[in-house]
């Protein structure tokens, strides 16, 4: 069993204008184990993506206080690639496009990055695994010969993120709004992919605005984040409650002094 712990995490980013910084995470605590699916919900601008990017190691986010531990070891000073090789995976909201590098070549490089020089995956084993996962995600062979995400539609990019997840098989996946921009069919396919990973050796943190995704990937734990903190945790029912009552309802119930971005719309 692997564990991922976030302890009193404070994170700030530099504002684009001027030389100012802004604190986004204000003391996040979270403990996950493999075998569990966690969901983080919350209104816009509340720090959900910041949390996933900070765990992965995006250099745009600066930790001012707190720690992130993977199996008891602090990872905050590790570069991104090392964190990934230790078992973290981030399915991104906006995957980069890279011309000249085929999807298949990239996947092999990612798999081999985790293996010893003298133990690289064989072409046959790789293709077998690839075919299996393509079928699961209802993706064509042709997608793997295309350049990495280049010219992919929003839905194709999301599927491709999940394909990588299935091929790389991390201990922990952070899924950042994988439901955005997906129609209901694609949502089902993506969910099927994630659900196929469920098991004792896999944990996920699903970030979403909407409860809908959680009908397909039923979480064990739901966290609600507001203004840079987790303000409430519960089981899958919490997500349903939020869907009916909204974030403002929960805020008022908890007596929080938080202004929601979309309040004055």
């Amino acid at each position, binding site marked *: 069993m692997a564990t991922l712990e976030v302890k009193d995490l404070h994170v700030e980013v530099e504002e684009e204008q001027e030389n100012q910084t802004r604190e986004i995470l204000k003391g996040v605590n979270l403990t996950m184990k493999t075998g569990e699916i966690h969901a983080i919900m919350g209104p816009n601008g509340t720090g959900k993506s910041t949390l996933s990017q900070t765990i992965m190691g995006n*250099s745009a986010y600066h930790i001012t206080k707190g720690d992130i531990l993977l199996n008891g070891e602090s990872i905050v000073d590790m570069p991104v690639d090392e964190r*990934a090789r230790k078992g973290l995976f981030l399915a991104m909201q906006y995957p980069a496009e*890279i011309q*000249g590098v085929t999807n298949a070549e990239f996947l092999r*490089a990612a798999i081999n990055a985790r293996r010893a020089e003298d133990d690289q995956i064989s072409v046959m084993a790789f293709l077998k695994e690839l075919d299996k996962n393509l079928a699961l995600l209802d993706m064509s062979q042709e997608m793997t010969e295309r350049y990495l995400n280049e010219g992919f539609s929003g839905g194709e990019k999301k599927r491709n993120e999940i394909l990588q997840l299935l091929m790389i098989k991390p201990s922990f996946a952070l899924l950042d709004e994988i439901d955005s921009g997906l129609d209901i069919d694609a949502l089902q396919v993506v969910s099927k992919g994630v659900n196929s990973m469920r098991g004792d050796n896999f944990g996920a943190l699903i970030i979403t605005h909407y409860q809908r995704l959680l009908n397909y990937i039923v979480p064990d734990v739901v966290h609600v984040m507001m203004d840079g903190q987790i303000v409430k945790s519960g089981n899958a029912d919490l997500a349903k409650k939020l869907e009916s009552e909204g974030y403002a309802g929960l805020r008022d119930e908890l007596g929080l002094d938080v202004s929601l971005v979309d309040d004055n719309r």
Partner: protein
Amino acid sequence: MKSAVQDYEAMKTAVEKAANEHGEPHWFVARRLAAIDAMQDLALPEVQRYDYHRWPLMDNLTLNWHRSDKTLASDIPVAKDRIRFVQVGQTTVEVDLPDELDDQGVILTDIFSAFREHPRLTEKYFMDKVTKANENKLTAYHEAFLNSGVFLYVPKGVEIKQPIEAYLIQDSTVKQPMVSHVLVIAEEDSKFSFIQHLNTKGDETNSASCMVEVLSRANSTVHFSSVDELGAHTYSFLHRRALLSRNSRFDWAIGVVNDQNTLGDFTSQLKGEGAHSESKVIAVTTGNQSNGINNRVVNIGKHTVANISQRGVLLEKSELVFNGIGDIIHGASGANAEQENRVLMMSDQAHGDANPILLIDENDVIAGHAASVGQVDQNQLYYLMSRGIDKELAQRLVIRGFLGPVLEDIPLPEVRQEMIDVIERKLEDGQHFK
């Protein structure tokens, strides 16, 4: 002490003697001598914002004949059913031209055989229609001291599916300049692609003067790619010219990945109405090397389309200057010229420049440019690294993506891979520099 005049006369006499011993036709010997005279007063080619005057590009003013060891070509991949010309130094090692092409009148031969056997074609077209010896000092030097090269003639209406490859290998096991010329004539309605490989064997310090001239007749379609991979002790001048007739299409896809200083001067002249040219160049520089590249398109005919795309990657303490020159001549109404020049800096000790230069003397045209000098895209790097790929490999993959538009254009997958491999090697070498 001998005077400069005596030295000069002695040089001319020596060149004439060497050319005659070589069995060259009179017209060409006369041209050599005229070129020597012309050399004296001509200026070096101008490359804006770039200084190369101290490079040893013309320090060897002798004409010598040397038989090279054929085994220097032994690492060329063996492949069946390829159309291929292989030359090591001045020695032609291999000419593979299928019989059916020979029957159709296609000529693929070394340049001196062409002078002797096809005088009507060569006397008229060699450095006369497309480029001229008196263009500058280096072109005059080239004609005066020419010592190797290849001639390709594709007759009217002939289409060749398989790319024609020329391996031109500099023999630097001896002290001797490479003065090599590729002359290509594409007659009306012909269609083919040509791939040139430039390599060096041996460690002597030499210069290379490598010229390409392509005459694209009406309605022809020609694609020219080159993998320039000259050695670490070769100072090179690469002069490439294409002249496009009516409704012809001519494209360059050039990878400048030499290991020493390179002066590149590439021009497409779109003379015929409706001609179209895409000029794509990539360059990777490492160590202390310096590359200056002019990529010029000249719109002369009406409704001509000429686009430039250049991408460069600089490592270590290297220098790279890309000049994209769009020249639209008065009368070229309806012309279209777009250019994009981008360089990627992988080291803060490197010096890179991407200069768009537009010279427009006509109102009814469309012209545009984009230029940038930048760093590796951090988002792309982060994305690849988030999958566990280490930083160095991730950088190389991002760079390959950056160079993709030119790599894409190389017609043979094996050659594309060859180019990728050379680039990877250069990048790896450069990355180890801290």
